[in-house]
């Protein structure tokens, strides 16, 4: 969100949440169509989330 690079672990999986070291933004890894991974802002906790 702040425009600075994000460190992503090599073994990351889609759905993993990563907190940006600089700005603290919570980001979600997702698979963008094919085999490419991308980042987007993680969604907040929804009412139907839980166990």
């Amino acid at each position, binding site marked *: 969100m702040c425009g600075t690079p994000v460190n992503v672990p090599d073994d990351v999986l889609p759905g993993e949440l990563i907190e940006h070291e600089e700005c603290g933004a919570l980001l979600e890894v997702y698979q963008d169509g094919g085999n490419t991974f991308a980042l987007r802002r993680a969604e907040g906790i929804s009412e*139907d989330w839980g166990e």
Partner: protein
Amino acid sequence: MRIAVVYDVLRWEEKDIISNIRSLGHEPVPIHVTSFYLDPYSNTQYMNLDVVIQRCVSLFRAIETTVFFESLGIPIVNKLEVLMVTGDKLHTTMKLIANNIPTPRTLIAMSREAAVNAAKKLGFPVVVKPIIGSWGRMIAKVNDEDALNSILELREHLQAPYHRIHYIQEYIEKPGRDIRVFTVGNEIPAAIYRISNYWKTNTALGGRAECVKVCDELRDLVLKAAEAVGGGYLGIDVLEDPSRGYLINEVNGVTEYKNTVRVCKVNISELIIKYAIEVGKK
């Protein structure tokens, strides 16, 4: 075997399941449901799956993806029937009552007036819960009619229509804890006390986990409750009532167990995978 793990948010449990599938010599197939669309007309990519383990944190995503995989004929744990029962507190309560399983006395009201009458019938304090939800969210202990009216007014202004369905339960005076018991098929791999000075003991709200030995009475009751909701792998919450003994409070169909593994040193992921493999063979 090719074992899919269907999930939306990758928590500790999903990572542990994927890792344990590998350790057991099988092939994990992580399916992150918000990365892809599901195409019922072109389903060949899924037909080589032997079994699916459902791990979506969103109830509605869990239900809809389970509908998808079950409709393709791919075995899935937990199955749709279990998610439908455990995802709705009233549905769970009705199954427990139908099977003569002790549970806190509960009334259901579809309006504010009926809710107030229900609470008076039970006697204050009461606990008001949404029928859908988890982690102790939006659950209120209500001490009197004024407070109840305030809570109900607030709920009437919430967007989701299910907030106008009031699940009202007697308040059980707990001994500063409740019990979370895990079931996998007919086995009970672990159980924890969830200890808190606050009346809500959820570990998501800071409740402390402590491993507990399950006595025969509790074992029999919990397995009966598991069967009543359709079986599978479950997290069953039990209250200790001072006069009536064990009461089954809630049943969780996509249960979390990180804290239980930490304090009980039991590999619950491995047990879930082995259970899924047996389901996949049938």
